[in-house]
């Protein structure tokens, strides 16, 4: 069964706002998975996918995506109203 896009809220690390001028701290969008969230971010701010994902493809080693408080992967499904945080991992600094 095809997954259905649901309304979610994405909070982006402040450093991403500096890399993509005009990008807000919080973004409301509709997506079924974390991969679809990143698709939408890429559509709004071209180049953001390359900052968040490598060519494997997977979320970069030192970028963390949390969905409702749990660390997620590209294929993680989203519930309506999910809170997504995209942050830089302490391991990358």
């Amino acid at each position, binding site marked *: 069964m095809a997954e259905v896009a649901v309304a979610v809220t994405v909070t982006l690390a402040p*450093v991403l706002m*500096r*890399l993509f001028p005009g990008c807000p701290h919080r973004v409301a969008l509709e997506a079924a998975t974390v991969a679809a969230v990143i698709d939408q971010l890429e559509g709004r701010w*071209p*180049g953001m996918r*390359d*900052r*968040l994902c*490598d*060519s*494997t*493809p997977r979320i*970069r080693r*030192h*970028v963390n995506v949390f969905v409702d408080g749990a660390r997620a992967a590209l294929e993680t499904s989203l519930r309506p109203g999910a809170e997504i945080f995209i942050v*830089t*991992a302490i391991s*990358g*600094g």
Partner: protein
Amino acid sequence: MSKTLILVGTRKGAFILESDQRRGDWRLRGPYCEHWPINHVVGDAAAGTIYGAGGNEWFGPAVWRSDDLGKSWTHSSAGLKYGEGEEPIKSVWSLAPSAHGLYAGVQPAGLFLSGADGAHWRQVEGLRDHPTRPQWNPGGAGLILHSLVPHPRDPRQIWVGISAAGVFYTGDGGETWEPRNRGTRADFNPEGQRYPEFGQCVHCLVMAPGEANTLYQQNHCGMYRSDDGGKSWQSIETGLPSSFGFPAAVHPRDPATLFLLPLNGDTAGRYVPDAKAAVWRTRDGGKNWQALRRGLPQENAYFCVLRRAMATDRHDPAGVYFGTNGGTLYASNDEGESWRCLAPHLPPILSVETLVVD
């Protein structure tokens, strides 16, 4: 009046020092590129564009671009990737503007080409398709394509330096490549295997001005000159204090003048010999060497100068510049005869280049 810029890549962003053609007073600005490690900063004098190559542990590789001499920057890595399942690109290590566009060397070693926008990349696949690639071994900094030398007039010809695969050459725009390492040593190999076809640890490859077939290289194991486009190499290390170092810089007009900065040895600490700093200059293609020390620290100097961290400018007399891994930038306005410190407290310096704009 023309501007003279020193383009500095550091562990924590790019910096620019700006002066006029007299090069007396310098103004430092930066850090740029969001504090990313920037391995190489180059300028295209004709277009007035500055590019920065780097990679960030969080966000991966990118090429940064400024069209206003560093005041504002954009970044892109569109197309700067290998296929799914391959080891992802970690960082961009080298840049070279050419008649074909902008070339970029990356880690793990590969070559990419973009238009002048530096924003849309495609791989020059022939290099990664070379049959020796499965046997390329990483050097201390990883498997990096750090030296990029396009022919100044023939866009089909390019030389690259890869640590530790050696020098490779293409004469057909990148479709096919051949190793060009004959005469350079691999002292780290067992006896009897120290002159292989490839696998040498080239540290820096440069081309003499106006002499496309004259190349110089600083290698992990010696300093070398070639007069046949790299088909064969001759050692030029006699008269130097060691056979180890990283950077090499050519004179802007004299093909027989070369600047090196030998270090005390790969297992001896990799700092300047006897902790006394000197740039070494030849005026005769490597037959004779002179230590240039005036103004440089002559005691307790335990620094290293990395492979991209020395450059000349196009003025007459030529300026020479180098930056240390301790974050100090030195300059000479008289082809190395005397030196002064321009910036003592930068982050660790990874690259130094110059740009003169009219």
